[in-house]
């Protein structure tokens, strides 16, 4: 996707008040306190340790830090991560 096309889409989404995650293929991340994290629209796991999970996204990756992290379920559409979450980081 070219940068100009991406900018156009973003403006379109703003203008029509459409959800950006659909038009821009962004992940939708929902946090429930520090216990549960739901990532929709992901591209698979990169690394899974009990203290750190790296999830591949459309652009870059998401690093989840915490203790006793477990994957409550994983499918093509979403990942649900449970445990004691301590931090989130987006990396390119």
């Amino acid at each position, binding site marked *: 996707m070219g940068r100009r096309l991406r900018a156009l889409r973003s403006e379109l989404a703003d203008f029509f008040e459409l959800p950006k995650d659909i038009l821009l293929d962004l992940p939708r991340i929902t946090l429930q306190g520090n216990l549960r994290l739901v990532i929709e629209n992901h591209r*698979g796991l990169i690394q*899974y340790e*009990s203290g750190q999970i790296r999830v591949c996204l459309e652009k870059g990756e998401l690093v989840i830090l915490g203790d006793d992290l*477990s*994957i409550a*379920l*994983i*499918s*093509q559409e979403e990942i649900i991560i449970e445990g004691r979450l301590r931090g989130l980081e987006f990396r390119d």
Partner: protein
Amino acid sequence: MLVLHLWYYLTGYLCLRVEGLALEKFVNLCISRGIYLWGIRRDEGGLVACLGVTNFRLLRPIARSSRCRVKILQKKGIPFYWRHLRGRQVLIGGAFLFFLSLYILGSFLWTIEVTGIVDPARVAQIRAEVEREGIRPGIWKGKIDPERLSRQIILHNPDLAWVNVEIRGTMLVIDAVPKQLQARVGLPCHLVAREEGVIQDLDLLAGEPLVQVGDTVQRGEILIRGSLGGRPIAAQGIVWALIWPEAYGECLREEIEHRRTGSVHRVLILRIGEREFPLPGAGEVPFHLYEKEAEIKRLISWRNLVLPVEAIIITYYEVEEVVHRLSVAEAEERARAAALAKIKSRLSPEARILQEEVKRIPQGSLEKVLVKVTCEVLENIAEPRGFEPEALERERGQQFETRGESQTGGTEQ
């Protein structure tokens, strides 16, 4: 997601242990093949995951390409439980035997109950009659014909108006209603004394009078007999008599009134089924004395379909105690009024109270006043009472006998 888990519970699922270096690759391959994984936990040198039993054969090429070793830890779900249970035939046999014995024991009669009749002698009589029909505890329920039995009981007991025989579980319930002879217009009836008293006036309209002015009558005594030349008729007449009803009345000298102060406290409770959930913010009732009112709100009720969800609004009204102190005379007046009201409730509207006597009964303490009120009342004491026309002849004979005796007694004096 619950539906999916339920589905996997029904079709069976496996808990696996995956060991290897490229565990992430294993997971990614699984999702790209559409294999649903859940409950993934990481531990030393591997991970534990669950998946549906039907997906297990798809795992082999994935494990090979990601160089992981897969080991089954547990097999769960209905098919595995069923397989496990099949090995324990005694357990299945026992469960089957349990339900079978429950069914067999439930198809016999265990108890017989007679309701609706107060007199224990009559109850025993009906029980004996039922037993004579061959119905006793221990017989097979199928042998009982409730309709036939109720007809039999009615036939043999003309004093019963209605009998219903019903099998309720292992219990035979015989519900009977005894006949009550009611004095109705046109049906033969006597006029009997409702109270004991001294007759002052007798206005005869129909029937044979058995009493005279000046007679003292007991309660239930026949005043005017419902017969005309031996033929049963409905007796009619008015019998004025002096009666002396009495009643007690009491009054406390200290009266406590609970008066609402105006401050209220509301609590909302959500009831789902049997459970009650107080909504947050309820807290303790901030009043020392209060009155409680509960209002139940149901969501919708359509026909007899009621949702098991209710909202209960409890309102607490703060109250204060106000003490009224009565003088002895005031308390006595109130007690007298209460006693008089009791007497009046027993009298007919046309009754006339001729005299009233109030007697104060001394109490141990001065806090309570107790009075006894006796009145002299002129009242129509005639009350109709129905009778069976055949009974008239029998009664007639008896009545004459007793009359004759009393007359002879009178002459001797």
